[in-house]
């Protein structure tokens, strides 16, 4: 009865507060759309200058890059003056590759291209490439899209839940509510259910949009995506409420974001986890997004099911339960019983 009163009140507040509702749904959608356009843009086109190269090699290179003959012998000058990514010079048996060099991924692509083109056609090995997960048409956005979907849901739910619980404290309604015979756990559960219902809708819209509109790779079942985002949102919401009791005002709540939310993205698989310094790598398994992102990748890229997911889901649920218990405990500050 009291729980449902809290739930109803939270949902009504959302309905009356259209701007917050829009923020929670539209903002992630806009950012995801922008990111998809940023990363799914044109293929990288290399521009390479050549000097005295055998026609055979140039022809091969032209399949993948814009190749131009450089007039001057000064390869460096043409790199600086014109917009070449690299200049290849064959000079009296001496073979030289000058790279523009400021972008590591372009460097790698050029070296790869030049190497492959220089190989004698007889030596060319035809390889049968097969993908265990993913495919050759997978874009980099497909790779980190699932992580970003998880991140934005986490981010917005954390912020809104934290701020609204904080407001409850600063506007005195928390005290007024605690002067009624509601139990502390009833209040926490009410908050979790109320926000949970709303985030369910929010996550569903964001996930639907990511998969069907911006065409994020989606191998597994949509139902699992919903389950994971809900669990992730639950942990964000309980963490947000918990941390709000350490903030005096909205500004301080926002300052938790660079401290608590943003670092999670470092450990969520957006960057290669194997190269993280040992001093930091232990942090990853302590953050909810680590599990949420892993589970989302399993479903969306690898198409896996519950057998692979249940550990991630269980850990996320564990986080939520822990934060909830801590919340009930933190409310003791306001009323002992």
């Amino acid at each position, binding site marked *: 009865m*009291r729980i449902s009163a809290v739930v109803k009140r939270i949902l009504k507040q959302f309905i009356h507060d259209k701007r917050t509702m829009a923020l929670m749904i539209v903002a992630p959608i806009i950012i995801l759309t922008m990111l998809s356009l940023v990363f799914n843009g044109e293929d990288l086109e290399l521009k390479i200058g050549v000097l005295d190269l055998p026609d055979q090699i140039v022809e091969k290179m032209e399949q993948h890059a814009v190749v131009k003959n450089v007039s001057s012998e000064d390869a460096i000058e043409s790199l600086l003056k014109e917009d070449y990514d690299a200049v290849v010079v064959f000079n009296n048996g001496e073979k030289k590759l000058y790279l523009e060099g400021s972008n590591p991924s372009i460097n790698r692509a050029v070296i790869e291209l030049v190497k492959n083109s220089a190989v004698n056609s007889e030596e060319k090995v035809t390889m049968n490439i097969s993908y265990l997960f993913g495919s050759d048409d997978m874009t980099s956005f497909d790779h980190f899209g699932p992580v970003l979907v998880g991140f934005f849901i986490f981010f917005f739910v954390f912020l809104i839940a934290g701020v609204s619980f904080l407001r409850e404290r600063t*506007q005195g309604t928390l005290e*007024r509510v605690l*002067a009624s*015979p*509601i*139990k502390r756990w009833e209040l926490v559960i009410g908050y979790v259910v109320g926000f949970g219902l709303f985030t369910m809708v929010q996550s569903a819209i964001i996930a639907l949009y990511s998969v069907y509109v911006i065409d994020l790779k989606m191998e597994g079942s949509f139902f699992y995506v919903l389950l994971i985002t809900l669990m992730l949102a639950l942990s964000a919401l309980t963490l947000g409420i918990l941390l709000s009791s350490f903030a005096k005002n909205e500004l301080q709540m926002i300052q938790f974001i660079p401290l608590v939310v943003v670092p999670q993205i470092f450990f969520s698989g957006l960057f290669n986890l194997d190269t993280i310094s040992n001093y930091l790598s232990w942090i990853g398994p302590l953050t909810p997004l680590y599990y949420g992102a892993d589970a989302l990748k399993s479903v969306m890229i690898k198409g896996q099911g519950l057998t692979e997911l249940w550990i991630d889901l269980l850990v996320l649920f564990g986080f939520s339960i822990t934060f909830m218990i801590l919340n009930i405990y933190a409310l003791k500050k306001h*009323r002992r*019983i």
Partner: protein
Amino acid sequence: MKNFPVQTRVTKRYGHTTILDNIKMTLNKGEIFGLLGPSGSGKTTFVKLLCGIEEATEGEVIVLEKQMPDLNVMKRIGYMAQADALYGELTAYENLEFFATLSGVSRREQKARILSAMKLVDLEKELQKRVEDFSGGMKRRLSLAIALLHNPDILILDEPTVGIDPSLRQKIWETFEDLRSKGVLILVTTHVMDEAERCSRLGMIKGGHLIAVGTPDELKKQTDSQTIEQAFLSYGGQSNEN
């Protein structure tokens, strides 16, 4: 009930500052008890101790024979805080509905209770208005309506009539007197002297001590004053409102 509904012997400190120093007070059923004292003297603190949202550092606060805080007793208390605690995004009706459910008013009775409480504070036409669009006095009246919703046995009102016009204030005090005659204990804090005059008994808090308790007439007699205001001043209180 043979016993007094409220009995306190309480000390409250924040850190090393003593706000209330061994306040002994007994309140009766069916009385309006007015709590007076200069600003910052600890009236709100005392009232919160009775509601169970603050806890005694030493001593005890017994309400309806239970040591506070106690959830079953809290059901029977109507509390109106000094600062309005309302949800601005919600309409008046939604606020009332929420607090009514929290205080345990059954769904069937809610509508009637809400209407009669709002009639009392003259807000029955504003039920569907959002609270953020209310004036200060309207918010005050809504807070009062919320405190009255569940027919509490004890009403604890922290400066209930601030910002309310004289004719409505008159009406509200008639309601208080009506409730008192039905056996409700009402505790009000106030800075308004003509309200103090209407209380059954008054208590004066100053410097953490309860320096005087008695009916308005007794207090006037003790200090040889014509009005409560004079009595208040001669006890050393500083009046900051008329």
